[in-house]
């Protein structure tokens, strides 16, 4: 029995088999190429870069949902590097100027930048050089024929068993891929400091990790039993039976502590004066459905499906989709799963865009796009309907503005149902149908829709954007984007009263549902269903259970007398602070 110590960055205690991850980088020789080969090398490079960007985009989308924008920036930065004209031009220039293969050119340019960054004392710049290496390594892997990425050997070496990874260091994107695979039990690295991306990832996903051990890879071999105590920062290698019992006891104790944290998620969803509310999670990747309940989600209020379409190069079959939806629905059963159909074509870089448009956000997007190109849309609808064997699936259509669209959707659904019934694959239960309220015009339809629609979902980000004519990603006007604008409050009240009158349920699934002050305002306006980033649920729940709905309602009722967003926000904040001191403070700040 031996021990290694390091920095504990993500608390937890686990015991399992070690897997040594050896990364040896291939040495690329400067093979000369002929002048006429330059074009081919540049073509190879462009293709590999394109492929790498698509992979990073996918990882980024997944991370953003489980970890929030800040952490996902790690991957976004790499994506930006691979769109950076300076970097790419330099690599191409090296190919053409020195008549070398793309691989060699990449390494030459990488070396140059690593040298530049080495001379910069600031720590955040050092982290930057990791990103450059990581991004360029991905391109190198993609230059090779076939799917051989650097991670492939690890994935191949490990059967379906969980393992504790021992490595010198891993790159941010490797960490992201490994940690979302569910097979990673724990992580021990020679390198890596407190602020490294890997540490952030591990903490968020609850994977115990000990970094900065110095020589773990020299002391541990693949197959060794190791116990990882990342409360004390110790790795025990091949523990004696007595030590193993002791570790088992610790694991149990830590489990109890975790239970207490989870107790909050089991509290009933009631305000202090017993008014009910419901919290759901927004997800983007299927595996997230396995963890959201532990964060306190009572269902999935929004499953964004865009990645299925983009990832499969727009050719995912009904069968494949059906399996994915079914699995998620079973994971979350008996709670509901709301599947939103492809919300694509909304920005200029979107591969689903059929052609260039001056104003993509006012153009052929989402439901509009798919009412024109019906085939992929119908396949998705059929897959959703077919997957509903447990009866908890709902379907949600984005960007609807007129009743004709709802009728067209209903027609496609009826057609899909007939086809499924003919094939004998239509389950007994129909899926419930909802539309997004994210363009102000849709709010005016609520009373006319009758039973064509079963529920509504407010996409607050877009609704604010279209109502106030503000692109919140445009730095010049972003400050005008506010959930406290009196006109937005007005439209929220209208949604509330129209939906009540129609007897339909409304969920708010935009960013504001997971933000303290806006969420309280929504609750006070009478909204009871909220769908948000899973990590925000515990905090929102704690806050809601502390307040009295009747009192909140009175405070919010006063807002209609105020005519400015700053006054509304200030009044709300002051009144809530007075009534419930500290309720708006985040426990983390």
């Amino acid at each position, binding site marked *: 029995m031996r021990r290694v110590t390091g920095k504990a960055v993500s608390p937890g205690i686990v015991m399992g088999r070690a897997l040594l991850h050896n990364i040896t980088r291939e040495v690329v020789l400067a093979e000369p190429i002929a002048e006429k080969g330059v074009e081919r090398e540049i073509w190879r490079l462009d293709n590999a870069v394109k492929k790498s960007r698509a992979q990073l985009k996918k990882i980024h989308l997944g991370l953003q949902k489980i970890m929030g924008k800040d952490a996902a*920036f790690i991957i*976004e*930065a790499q994506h*930006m*590097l691979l769109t*950076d*004209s*300076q*970097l790419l031009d330099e690599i191409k220039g090296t190919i053409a100027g020195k008549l070398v293969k793309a691989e060699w050119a990449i390494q030459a340019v990488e070396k140059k*930048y690593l040298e*530049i*960054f080495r001379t*910069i004392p*600031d720590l*955040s*710049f050092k*982290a*930057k050089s990791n*990103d*450059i290496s990581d991004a360029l390594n991905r391109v190198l892997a993609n230059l090779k024929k076939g799917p051989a990425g650097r991670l492939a050997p690890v994935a191949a070496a490990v059967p379906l068993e969980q393992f504790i990874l021992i490595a010198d260091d891993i790159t941010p994107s490797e960490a992201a891929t490994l940690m979302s695979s569910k097979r990673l039990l724990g992580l021990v690295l020679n390198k890596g400091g407190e602020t490294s991306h890997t540490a952030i990832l591990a903490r968020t996903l609850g994977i115990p990790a000990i970094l900065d051990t110095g020589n773990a890879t020299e002391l541990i071999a693949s197959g060794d039993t190791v116990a990882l105590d990342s409360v004390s920062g110790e790795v025990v290698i091949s523990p004696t039976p007595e030590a193993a019992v002791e570790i088992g006891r610790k694991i149990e104790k830590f489990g109890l502590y975790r239970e207490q944290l989870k107790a909050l998620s089991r509290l009933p969803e009631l305000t202090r004066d017993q008014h009910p509310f419901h919290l759901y999670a927004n997800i983007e990747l299927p595996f997230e459905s396995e963890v959201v309940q532990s964060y306190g989600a009572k269902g999935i209020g929004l499953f964004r499906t865009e990645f299925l379409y983009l990832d499969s190069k727009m050719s995912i079959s009904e069968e494949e989709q059906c399996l994915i939806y079914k699995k998620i629905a079973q994971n979350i059963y008996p709670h509901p799963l709301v599947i939103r159909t492809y919300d694509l074509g909304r920005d200029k870089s979107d591969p689903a865009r059929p052609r260039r448009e001056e104003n993509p956000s006012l153009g052929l997007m989402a439901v509009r796009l798919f009412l024109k190109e019906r085939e992929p849309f119908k396949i998705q609808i059929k897959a959703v309907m077919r997957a509903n064997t447990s009866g908890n699936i709902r379907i949600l259509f984005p960007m609807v503005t007129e009743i004709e669209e709802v009728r067209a959707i209903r027609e496609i659904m009826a057609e899909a149902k007939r086809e499924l019934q003919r094939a004998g694959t239509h389950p007994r239960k129909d899926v419930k149908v909802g539309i997004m309220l994210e363009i102000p015009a849709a709010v005016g339809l609520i009373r006319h829709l009758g039973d064509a629609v079963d529920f509504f979902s407010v996409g607050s980000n877009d609704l604010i954007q279209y109502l106030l004519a503000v692109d919140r990603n445009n*730095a*010049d006007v972003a400050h005008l984007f506010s959930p406290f604008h009196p006109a937005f409050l007005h439209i929220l009240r209208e949604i509330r009263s129209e939906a009540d009158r129609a007897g339909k349920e409304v969920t708010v699934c935009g960013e504001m549902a997971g933000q303290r002050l806006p969420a309280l305002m929504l609750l006070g306006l009478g909204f009871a269903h909220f769908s948000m980033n899973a990590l925000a649920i515990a905090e929102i729940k704690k806050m809601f259970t502390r307040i009295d709905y009747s009192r909140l309602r009175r405070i919010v009722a006063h807002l209609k007398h105020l005519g400015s967003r700053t006054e509304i926000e200030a009044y709300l904040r002051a009144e809530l602070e007075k009534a419930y001191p500290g309720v708006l403070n985040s426990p983390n700040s």
Partner: protein
Amino acid sequence: MIEKKQQITNKLGLHARAAAKLSHLANMFSADIYLIYNDDKVNAKSLLGILTLAASVGNEITLQAAGSDEQEAIRAIGELFDRKFDEES
């Protein structure tokens, strides 16, 4: 072509995220935009270029733009600096 001197006032300087915001903004303009610091001149549309400047708080850099929307570009980028890249509120 126009130029403007600009003080870096955000605590972290031109670190990764600020550089990303800056290059993102610069890419919205058609003008050629450069940052000049010490003897280095880099393309403001390149994240990598900005990072290699390693400019930190208190440093003064020169913004340079040439093109049909050079005025707007300099103004918008200057404002981003003045707003401390929206990092400190």
